[in-house]
């Protein structure tokens, strides 16, 4: 359990140049996962920081999963959903959108920086957008520094 409040702000300490943020992507099968495949088939190069977990719908993402990932040291969690109106399951992504403010509030209460979790709408044909989003997220997480809960073991 997380006992005391975490300090998670961009510090002025010496920035670790070799720090490679660990991003857990939780992507819906129909839009973002497919878009991520499309980025691959189009050979769009991005920094090697994104791991992808597939769910059928972004509505399946439990806040506990995001908390668990952060608790275990993920530097960022990127939830990928269909655009509003394009959900394969009518409106699962609406529910994710509605849960986000609560989730962000929750991780902030733990002391995490709100940027530790992102929700982005990326369609099946938006491999280029995904690539840009990952690049931007990596940049932001590098500025933010490692998850304060992460132990010093490097990989």
């Amino acid at each position, binding site marked *: 359990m997380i006992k005391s409040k975490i300090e998670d702000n961009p510090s002025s300490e010496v920035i670790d140049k070799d720090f490679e943020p660990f991003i857990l992507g939780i992507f819906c099968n129909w839009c973002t996962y497919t878009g991520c495949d499309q*980025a691959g*088939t189009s050979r769009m190069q991005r920094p090697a920081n994104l791991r992808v977990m597939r769910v*059928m*719908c972004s509505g399946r993402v439990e806040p506990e999963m995001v908390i668990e990932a952060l608790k*275990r040291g993920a530097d960022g969690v990127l939830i990928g959903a269909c655009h509003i109106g394009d959900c394969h*399951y*009518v409106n699962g992504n609406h529910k994710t959108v509605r849960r986000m403010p609560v989730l962000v509030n929750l991780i902030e209460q733990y002391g995490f920086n709100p940027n530790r979790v992102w929700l982005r709408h990326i369609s099946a044909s938006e491999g280029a957008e995904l690539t840009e989003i990952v690049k931007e997220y990596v940049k932001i997480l590098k500025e933010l520094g490692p998850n304060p809960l992460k*132990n010093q073991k490097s990989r």
Partner: protein
Amino acid sequence: MSKSKINIISPSNNSESTEIRIGVYLCHCGVNIGGVINMDEMVKFAQKLPNVVIARQYKFYCSDNGQAEIARDIRDGLVNRVVVAACSPRMHESTFRRVLVDEGLNPFYFVQANIREHATWVNMNDPAGAQRIAQDHVRMQVAKARELRALKPQKVMVKPSALIIGAGIAGINTALDLANQGFHVYLVEKEPTIGGHMAQLDKTFPTMDCSSCILTPKMVEISRNPNITVMAYSEIEHVDGYVGNFQVQIRKKAHYVDQLKCTGCGECAQHCPVSVGNEFDLGLSHRKAIYIPFPQAVPGLYTIDMEHCIKCGICASTTVCEPQAINFDDQDEIDTIEVGTIIVATGYDPIDVSNLGNYGYGRFENVITGLEMERNLSSTGPNLGHPVRPSDGTSPKSIVWIQCVGSRDTREGYHPYCSRVCCMYAIKQARQYKEKHPEAQCYIFYIDIRAFGKGYEEFYELASHEYGIKFMRGRLAEIQENPDKSLLIRAEDTFLAQPIEINVDMVVLSIGLETTHDSGKIASMLAIQKSTDGFFMEAHPKLRPVDSLTDGIFIAGVAQGPKDIPDAVSQAKGAAAGAAILMAKGEVEVEPYFSIVQPALCSGCRSCINQCPFGAITFDEILQIAHINPIKCKGCGTCASTCPSNAILQNHFTTKQLMAIIDGVLGDYQV
């Protein structure tokens, strides 16, 4: 309840109580994976993961030999869970699941780690990074493999009927192919007639067949086929259901003419005092407020355009309409049909050039579009096949065709893709004009001539050598209008690398094709995806070009991307075959990813019920728990993430499985 029980094999089942032995199969995919990361290292890495009894590598696991290796390990009792680290599961998940089934193992004891699309292909210049991601993806799927549960694939019946949206040349061919196999077809078309854009064309390249002569017999065949219900002037309103069992609501727009009483005699149109531009002729000719779009329309029954009708009542008098078919109180009707498959053949819209500033369309009278030229060339068109200058009605002595208008252009409002038909139709139109006016000067300004189809290159060669059509390689810089309404073209001849100026009587803009303005609405209703170019997205660009990502829904013709008539027809026939396979078999297996309520854990709070977009969750008043109908459930898992008691399991995506993935990959970081 009973339904859910048979789908989950209880923990006492042999295979789940025995020790979990995972085999990890690392695919090189030729050099796609093996050429980027170190596969020997990957094997060593995988072997150390918990429950992994064996890790192997091979050049192509999807090949016969690769599959046989996995099968042998299962047969020898070496492994009872299979992880293949290769391409995307969207590519080969079903291939490998079959290997397990053939060896008597539950197919859901298989998971695939995506180390190609999500690793080696996106980190090609960073082998260490690609290795790191690939290892993590293997670690994630091995963690999930430990938590896998046997599932029984669900089978659903497929109704032997199809809905085809759009009745252009693609929709017509699909409809005939399916109807002739004995399936019932609902052919829905938003215009009052079937035929689509092909009906507007004069001749077709490269054979110079008259478009109407090859299309209208097909249209008549449609109207005569007892297995086809033509629903012209109708639009899709709502789609429900899943593969094999779609419920579709169709809005039949009011004709204000009783379609059962109308005989198509045309008396009404002769008497109608209102004259408006005929859309079929792109406004170049006139029609009445009561009309059929063109004489060969199918069904050839009349419709009143209420936007322009002045309700004078002349057509309604019994001396004009003897069968008394006119009904000013007619209203839209909603029909609900049930079909097993859906084919989307919605075609295209021509690019709207009035948005494209520098071509002068709309400002200069003698700048017209390729489709307007097509109507001009047509013997049934506004000028009976003799193109004239709009400004003075004379035959132009010189014409310039400008290629790639709106296509192959990265500027805002244009399309980067090639529309694939404009080169050929411009050459065809120039040849047609030259045949009528051999003395006329015809120029085609192009970037590249794309004459790729069968007989196309020969057609192009002939145009240049025999017809004397001048091909100028260069992009337009500017069009200016001279006082006599002729046009000054400024361009660059990129072969000679020098600017050129030509004065011509008329300019034809070879406009490209774009997705229909309502394709977004159709995509949302059907839950299918669109590609970056706006056209509907196929399940795989090469191997599944007519399937959508949604089971039971197919794409045919230009709806999937620009193509010429032969390609649209081939694809239409492919889509018909795809739909027929499902319907002929009569049943289809669907992934059993539905959710289940665990009765002992459900507190009866009902939070899940209003989360379900499909009304699949009901409340059992006697047991005071929620119940999920596995047939109605489409498997999004939103209820599972909502349940405060963790009482809902989503098959193959249980909380335990997903948490195992997170813990598995982040285990090293544990605090």
